[in-house]
C-alpha cells in the first residue's frame, strides 16, 4: 500500500492486520515531512524520537496481542497551540518561543489513548489570529497547490500537512473559521464541531466562547473517526457539553434522500467570486440529484456576522492574552528591570506580533468604559439575533450550505496591509462560531489557477451526525478530494 495516500482508517486497519507496522507508517510520515517542509513551512516542530517511540510501543502491543485503539499507529499533527507535556508549544509567537508545557491537552490524551502517533506541531497564525497564516512569528505556511499562495489560516500548517500527505489526520482550532477556511484553501476536509463537543483544556485560549478544536482529514469518514475519538465531556473544561457522543462513523450511510438543505440565497448573493459561486451551485446540484431537497432560507443578521465576530473575539482575546506578562512563562524583555509595569508593557510589545497587538487594542477599546454598551454588549445582542436566525432556518432545513470562502486562496502578501479586508474574507465562517454550530468544509472544485475551493455545510447544535452524513454523501459522488498537489 502507498501509506502516504492511505486514509487514517486504512492505515489503522493495515497495522491491525499486520500488513504495515506503526513504525513504518511513522517513518513514512517523517520522511514526507522532511522532503516537503522546506517548501511549505508547515511544521514548527517535529519530534521524531518521541513519535518513533510511540509507534514502536503500538507495534509491541500488537505483537503481544493487545487490543488496539481506533487510531492505533495513525500519524497525527497538532496545531502548535495545543499542549503536549514536554513538547514545545509556541502558538507561533515569540512570547512563547521556548514554552514547554507541563501537561497534556485533553485532545492529546484522547488521541494517544486511541493509539495515534503525534509527529509534531504545525505552524499557524500567532495565537490563531489570522486568515492567511501570514501572522506566524516563524514565517508563513505556503499552499501546497501553489507555493506563492496562502494556505488559509489560522490552522494553515495542519491543512497544508494533510494536503501534502505528511499525515492523514491533523488537529486545528476554529474560532472564526480557522479549520474550515484553510481546509478549503488546501483542498482537504475540515470539521469544526459544535461548541462544547470537544474539550478545550490544553488549548491556548484566544476567544473562549468561540474556540473549538477539530480535525483535518482527506475524507469525511476520517474526520468522523477523529471526532469520535475527540468528543465528550471533560471535567477539566466546564464548557464541554454533557451530550451523548454517537458513533459518527456509523452515521455515514451515503443517503441524503430525507435531507433538506437550506440555501441562504440573499446572503450569498453579493461579493462571491464567480468561480466560487459556480462550484457552490454545482455542489448544491450534486446533492439535489442525490435526492436531497433544496429549500430557501433567510438569515437576515448573517451580514453582520463579521463586525459582531471581531467585536466579540477581540474583547475575549484582550482578556485571555493578559496572562502573557513575562512572569510565569514565556519571554521577558531584558531591557526593563526597573519596574514591574515597564517590564509588562515592554515584554508584551516585544513578544507579540502586529495582528495580536491590533486585536488586544481593539478588544481593550470595546470593553473600556463608555464603549462597552455601544460595541461589546451590542455585539452580544446581535449574536442572539443571529442564533435565532439559525434556529428558524433549522425548522425548515436539516443543514445549511454556503461557500466556505468568498474567493479562492489569494497570493501571499496580497492583503497584509489592510486588516479589514482580511477580516471580510471570514464572512461565511464566523457565524457558526457565534451560534456555536458545527460546520464542515469539503473540497468542491478548483479555480482557473488550480487552487482548491471549499463547500461548507453547517448543522444543528450537536447534530454532527447529519452534517457528516451529508458531507460524506457529497464526497462519494465527487472526486475533488482525491486530487494530490504536485510538490
Amino acid at each position, binding site marked *: 500500500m502507498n501509506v502516504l495516500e492511505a486514509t487514517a482508517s486504512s492505515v489503522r486497519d493495515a497495522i491491525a492486520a499486520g500488513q504495515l507496522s506503526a513504525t513504518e507508517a511513522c517513518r513514512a510520515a517523517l520522511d514526507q515531512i522532511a522532503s516537503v517542509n522546506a517548501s511549505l513551512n508547515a511544521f514548527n516542530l517535529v519530534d521524531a524520537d518521541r513519535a518513533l517511540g510511540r509507534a514502536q510501543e503500538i507495534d509491541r502491543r500488537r505483537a503481544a496481542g493487545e487490543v488496539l485503539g481506533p487510531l492505533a499507529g495513525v500519524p497525527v499533527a497538532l496545531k502548535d497551540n495545543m499542549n503536549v507535556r514536554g513538547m514545545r508549544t509556541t502558538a507561533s509567537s515569540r512570547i512563547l518561543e521556548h514554552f514547554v508545557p507541563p501537561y497534556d491537552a485533553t485532545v492529546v490524551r484522547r488521541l494517544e489513548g486511541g493509539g495515534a502517533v503525534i509527529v509534531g506541531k504545525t505552524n499557524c497564525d500567532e495565537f490563531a489570529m489570522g486568515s492567511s497564516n501570514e501572522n506566524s512569528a516563524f514565517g508563513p505556511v505556503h499552499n501546497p497547490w501553489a507555493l506563492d499562495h496562502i494556505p488559509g489560516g489560522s490552522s494553515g500548517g495542519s491543512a497544508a500537512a494533510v494536503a501534502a500527505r505528511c499525515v492523514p489526520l491533523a488537529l486545528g482550532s476554529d474560532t472564526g473559521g480557522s479549520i474550515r477556511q484553510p481546509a478549503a484553501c488546501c483542498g482537504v476536509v475540515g470539521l469544526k464541531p459544535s461548541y462544547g463537543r470537544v474539550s478545550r483544556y490544553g488549548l491556548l485560549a484566544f476567544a473562549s466562547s468561540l474556540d473549538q478544536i477539530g480535525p483535518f482529514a482527506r475524507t469525511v469518514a476520517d474526520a468522523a473517526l477523529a471526532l469520535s475519538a475527540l468528543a465528550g465531556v471533560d471535567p477539566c473544561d466546564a464548557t464541554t457539553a454533557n451530550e451523548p457522543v454517537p458513533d459518527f462513523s456509523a452515521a455515514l450511510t451515503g443517503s441524503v434522500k430525507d435531507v433538506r438543505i437550506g440555501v441562504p440565497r440573499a446572503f450569498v448573493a453579493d461579493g462571491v467570486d464567480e468561480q466560487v459561486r459556480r462550484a457552490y451551485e454545482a455542489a448544491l446540484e450534486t446533492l439535489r440529484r442525490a435526492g436531497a431537497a433544496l429549500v430557501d432560507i433567510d438569515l437576515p443578521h448573517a451580514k453582520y456576522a463579521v463586525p459582531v465576530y471581531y467585536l466579540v473575539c477581540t474583547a475575549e482575546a484582550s482578556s485571555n492574552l*493578559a496572562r502573557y506578562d513575562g512572569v510565569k512563562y514565556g519571554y521577558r524583555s531584558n531591557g526593563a528591570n526597573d519596574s514591574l509595569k515597564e517590564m509588562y508593557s515592554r515584554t508584551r510589545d516585544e513578544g507579540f506580533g502586529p495582528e495580536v497587538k491590533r486585536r488586544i*487594542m*481593539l478588544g481593550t477599546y470595546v470593553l473600556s468604559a463608555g464603549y462597552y454598551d455601544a460595541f461589546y454588549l451590542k455585539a452580544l445582542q446581535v449574536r*442572539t439575533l443571529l442564533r435565532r436566525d439559525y434556529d428558524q432556518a433549522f425548522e425548515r432545513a436539516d443543514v445549511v450550505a454556503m461557500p466556505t470562502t468568498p474567493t479562492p486562496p489569494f497570493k501571499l502578501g496580497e492583503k497584509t496591509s489592510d486588516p479589514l479586508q482580511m477580516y471580510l474574507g471570514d464572512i461565511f465562517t464566523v457565524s457558526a462560531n457565534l451560534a456555536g454550530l458545527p460546520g464542515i468544509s469539503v473540497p468542491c472544485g478548483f479555480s482557473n489557477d488550480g487552487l482548491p475551493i471549499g463547500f461548507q455545510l453547517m448543522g444543528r*447544535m450537536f447534530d454532527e451526525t447529519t452534517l457528516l452524513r451529508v458531507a460524506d454523501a457529497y464526497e462519494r459522488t465527487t472526486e475533488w478530494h482525491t486530487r494530490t498537489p504536485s510538490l
Partner: protein
Amino acid sequence: MQNANTTPRLHFEFCILNYDRLVPTSLTIADVERIAALAQLELTDEEKHLFTKQLADILAYAEQVQAIDTSGVPATAHVNSAQRTERDDVPRPCLSIEDAIANAPDGAPEAGLFRVPRVIGG
C-alpha cells in the same frame, strides 16, 4: 497594573444615534496611547500611527451593528450557558511547584517563587 479608576477619556468627533449613544468616527494618537496603557502594551511610534488608522477603519466598519434594533434582546456571551457546571469542592492533584515554575523567565525554584522587578517605587 491597571488602575480601575482610570476611565479612558477618548477625544473623538461624535455623532449621535437614535438611541442616544456616542460613537467614534475617528481616533487620535492620544486615544491609541491610552488604550495601549490599559492593555499594558508599550507601542512604538510607528505602531501608534499604524493602529490609529487601522483601528479607526475597523471601528467605523463595526459601527453598523449600532443601527440594529436590539431592544429587549438578551446578550449571548456563551452558547451553552444553561448547562450546570458546578462540581464538588474536593481537592484534586495539580501541578507541582517545580513544574509550575519551570517555564518562568526568572523563577526561584528553591524558594517556590516567581521573581519580578520592583513593584513599589519603581
